[in-house]
């Protein structure tokens, strides 16, 4: 991976959260906002259904970029994201990215996450220390 250069794409990460993933993430993170775990409540407040936690989606962007260093938890130095769309359970999430800067074994990646045409995370930037 150390030979990554500006303009290179990073390997895509594809993950499909199952119906109950938001419940497990709620327990793991402590965020029990009902818009994430209660489809009836979500509909009452005008959403199509319960929506994924933005920070779970951010964790997938983190994971997609940490793959450049085999998932080493020391590799990801910085990650900034903008939440721009609602994500839904049972739809595939695709994390992609393009190397914006490469300086030795440090890369800055322009990255994003989408479900089909729905860009849920945009204008994200990851700084990764390569092995």
């Amino acid at each position: 991976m150390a030979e990554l250069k500006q303009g290179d794409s990073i390997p895509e990460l594809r993950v499909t959260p199952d119906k109950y993933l938001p419940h497990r993430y709620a327990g793991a993170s402590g965020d029990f906002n009902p818009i994430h775990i209660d489809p009836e409540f979500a509909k009452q407040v005008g959403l199509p259904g319960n929506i994924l936690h933005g920070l779970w989606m951010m964790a997938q962007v983190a994971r997609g970029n940490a793959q450049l260093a085999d998932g080493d938890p020391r590799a990801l130095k910085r990650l900034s994201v903008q939440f721009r769309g609602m994500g839904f359970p049972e739809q595939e999430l695709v994390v992609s990215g393009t190397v914006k800067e490469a300086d030795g074994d440090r890369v800055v990646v322009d990255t994003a996450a989408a479900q089909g045409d729905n860009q849920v995370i945009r204008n994200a930037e990851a700084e990764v220390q390569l092995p």
Partner: protein
Amino acid sequence: MAVKTDGIGKQWDPATYEVGAEKIREFADAIDAGNPVHRDHEAAKAAGFRDLVAPPMFCVVYSARAMAPAILDPGIGLNLATMLHGSQEFEWNEPVCHGDVISTTATCAEIYERNGMGFYVFQTISTNQEGEQTVKGTWTNIVRGV
């Protein structure tokens, strides 16, 4: 109606969090972090960590305790009913391991209005029991129709 900005600069008392192995495993499972260093003490030590290590995004677990009083502070006046999590940034330093005690301090960095929306920016700094910084977070919440 303009946003109330007198909360800028306000800092809340630090919140502490004791990091445990099962919580790390549970979080790693929920985000599909597959590296054995998140599940196995020996694998983590063999990879050079002090002990079982948390995925970077575990920072949301220990930072949340410091963010809750900031978001709920009536002096800030965030309207939770129309609040969206607009953007998020983390900068990581020292990894967080089983047995660590993390202390997080939240500060209101900015409040401003743009295009009829209120932007509330909070910063969190988290340090471990040795005083080493583990993460710096920048949390931007957007409130529609201010």
